[in-house]
C-alpha cells in the first residue's frame, strides 16, 4: 500500500497550477487548460480515496468516469466558443472580450450589437 500523501500533494499542485491558469491567464485556450487541470486534480483525489477506503461500490472510480465524460463534452463546447470568439474578434483575449458585461460595449470601444447586425438587413 503506497502512502496517500504523494497523490494528495500532486493534486494540490495540479489545483494550484489550474487556478493560476484560470485566474491569471488571458488566453482563453490556456484558461481552458487550467480548467482541465482542476478537473484532473479532482479525478486524482477521487481515484486515490477510492483505493484508500476500498469502497465496494467504487463510487470514486465511477465518478471519475463521469467527470471525464462531462469534461470531454465541456471541452467540445468551450473550444467551439473560443473558435467563434476568435472569428468574431481576431483574438482570444478574455480581458478584452467584455461585451456581455453591463455597459461593456462603450468600454471596449466596439460598436453595439444592433448596429452591427442592422447593416446586412
Amino acid at each position, binding site marked *: 500500500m503506497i502512502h496517500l500523501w504523494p497523490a494528495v500533494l500532486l493534486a494540490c499542485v495540479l489545483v494550484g497550477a489550474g*487556478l493560476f491558469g*484560470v*485566474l491569471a491567464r*488571458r488566453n*482563453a485556450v490556456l*484558461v481552458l487548460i487550467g480548467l482541465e487541470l482542476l478537473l484532473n486534480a479532482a479525478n486524482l483525489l477521487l481515484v486515490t480515496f477510492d483505493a484508500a477506503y476500498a469502497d465496494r461500490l467504487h463510487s470514486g472510480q465511477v465518478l471519475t468516469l463521469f467527470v471525464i465524460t462531462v469534461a470531454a463534452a465541456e471541452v467540445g463546447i468551450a473550444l467551439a466558443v473560443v473558435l467563434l470568439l476568435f472569428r468574431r474578434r481576431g483574438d482570444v483575449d*478574455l*480581458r478584452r*472580450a*467584455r*461585451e*456581455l*458585461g*453591463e455597459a*461593456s460595449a462603450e*468600454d471596449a470601444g466596439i460598436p453595439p450589437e444592433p448596429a452591427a447586425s442592422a447593416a446586412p438587413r
Partner: protein
Amino acid sequence: MNTVVAAGPDVGDIAWAARFVVVLPALAALAGAVVPRQYRTTISAVGVGGALAALLAAVTELAGTGGSTVAHSVALLGPAPTGAGTIDLTLRADRLSAVVAVMVCVVALAVQVYSVAYQCDDQRYRAFASVVSLFTAAMLLVVQADDLLLLLIGWEVMGLCSYLLIGHDSERRAARHAAVKAFLVTRMGDVGFVLGIVTLLAAADTSSVSRLLEPGTLERLSTAQVTAASLLLIAGVVGKSAQLPLQTWLPDAMEGPTPVSALIHAATMVAAGGYVLARLLPVLAQAPAARAVLAVVACASMLAAALAAFAQSDLKRVLAWSTISQVAYLLAGIAVAPPDLGAAPAVMQLLSHAAFKSLLFLCAGALAYRVHTTAMGRVADGPSLAGSWARSPVTSVLLTVGLAALAGVPPLSGFWSKEAVLGAAEVAALDGGVDGAGSLVWAGWLVLVVGLVTGFVTAAYATRAWMLVVPSPADVPAESSGAQLVTDDSPPAELLPSVPRRDPLLHAAVPPAMSWTLLGLAVPTVLAGLLLIGPVVPGAIHLSSLTGALATTLALAGIVAAGAAERFAGRRVPGGASAADRRGDPVLVLPAGVRAFLAGGFGLDAVHHALVVAPTRLLARGVTVGDHDVVDAYPRGGALLARWAGVALRLTQTGRTTGYLGALAAGAVVVALAGVGLR
C-alpha cells in the same frame, strides 16, 4: 289541517303530474338554450311547448287534488342524507299548489306565446325564451316544494332570472341599472328569508313543510322561535313582493321587456312572496306580532303605492305601482286571515291579480307595439299612448276590462278577490283574533279601512290611466301621435328581423299571437269570480254585503272623482281653448310638489340612497383605500426592493470572465471550508 297520505287510488297520477309541472319547464329551458340560435321557430316551439306541457300537468294535478283537502307528498330527487339529518327533497301536491301552479302555467304560456311575436326582432330571443322557461320552472318549484330547501332553491333561481330578464336589453344603461337594483334590493330581503328558513329548520328539526305544518310540530316551537322565523320570512317576502320599504326595484324593473313585466308581476316573483306566506300560514298564525307587522307593512304599501300610481306618467309604471298595491291586498289578507277562512282570500286575490295584471301588461305591450312608447299624456307632450281606441279598438277594450277589474268593478275578478280580502278583514275586526285574544282586531280594522280607501284611490288611478290612453283627443288626428292608423284587422306588415324595432311602419298591426293571447287572458279576468263557486280555492271565503256595497260605492266614487278631476284640471290649463286642451290630466288637480313627491315614489329612493347606498359606497371607498394604500404597500415595497437589489447586482456584471472565475473559485473554497467546518 291538511293530512299527508302516501297512498290512494290516483296518487300515482298526481305524483307524476307534480313532478312534470316542475321538470318540464326546466327541461324546456335547457333544450331551448342548446338549439342553434338561427332556428327561431324551434326555440319558440320549445318555450311554448314547455309551458303548455306544464299547464297540462298542472291541470291534471288540479283534477286529482281539487276536490279534497288531502296533501300528497311526492319524492322528487330522493332523500339527501346530511350530517345532521335527512333532507327529504319532496314535492307537495295539494289544492293550493295545484291551483297556483295552473295560474303560473297559464301566465307563462301566455307570455311565451306573446313574446314569439313581441320579441320577433330580438337578436337574443333564445336567451329570452330559455330564461322565461327557467323562471317558470323556479316559480313552479316554489309552488310545489314540500321542502324548505327546495323552496329556497326556487326562490333564489327566481332572483337570478329576474336579474337576467330585467336586464335583457343590456345595451341600455337604464336596463342594466334596473337589473342590478332589482337583484340587490331583493337580495336584502333574501338575507332575512334564508335566516328565517334556517330558524325554522333549527327549531322544528325538519325541512319538510308537511311535517312542519303538523299541529304537533308547531306546538313544540316557542313563541319567540315562531315570531323570529315569521318576521325573517316576512322580510324576504317584503323584498320579493316589493312592499314598503323595499319597493323601489319594481317600478325601475319596467326597463325589462313588457312580457317579462307581465311574468314577474302576475305569475312569478312578486306572487311568490304571497304564496310562501299562504303556504306557511299555520306558522304565521302562531306569531301574532309578525302578523301585526305584516298588516302594517301591507297597509302602508297598499295606500302609498296606489297614491304613487295616480301620479305616474308612464302606463307601465302605473301598473308597477298598482302591483305593489294589489300584492299588499294579498299580504293583508294573509295578515288578518282568520283560522276558519285560512289563506283562501289571499289566494283568491293572487289568482285574480295574476289574471288581470298579466292582461294589463300584455295590453300595454300591444299598444306600445304600435307607438313605441308607454308614456301617457296628451299628444302635444310628445309620443304617447293617447288615442289608442282609434288605433287598436280590440286591445283598448281589453285594456278597459283589465283596468275595470283592477278598479274592482263588480262582476269582474278584481271585485271578488278584493271582497274576499275585505271580508276576511271584517271577520278579524268583528270576531277577534286567532286565539281569541283579540290581537287581530285592530289589524282587521286597519286592513278594512285602508283597503276601502285604497279601493277609492285604485279606481281613481285606473280611470285616469284609461282616460289618458284610450279615448282619442277630440280635435287631433291619431296619425300625429306617431303611428299609422291601422286597425287590428289589417294584415300584419312583413317583419324582418334585421330592421330595428323603432321603425313605425313595421309592426303596424298587432300580430295574432299577441291579440289571441290577450283575448285568452281576458277570460279569467272576467270570470275569476266563478272560482268562488268551484271547489278550486282552498279554504272558505267570507263575503259580506256591507263591505261589498261600500267597496263598490267607493270604487265608483273613485271613477267619478277622476272624471271630475279631469274636467277641473282641464279648466286650469292655461290657454285651453280647444276641446282637447280642456281635458287635462286628472293628476293636475294636485299641487306640483305633491305630484313630484308621489311620482318619485315618496323620495324613498333618496332615503335608500342615504341609508344604504351612501354608507356602502363609503365603506367600499374605505376598503379601496385600505387595499390600495395598506395591503398593496407591501407588494409595492417588495417590488422596489427587488429593483434596487437588481441595480446593485448589475454592478457585479463586469463582463470580465476572469472575475467571474475568481468569484467561482472563492465560492468553491467557501463551500469546501463550510463543509469541513460543519461536519
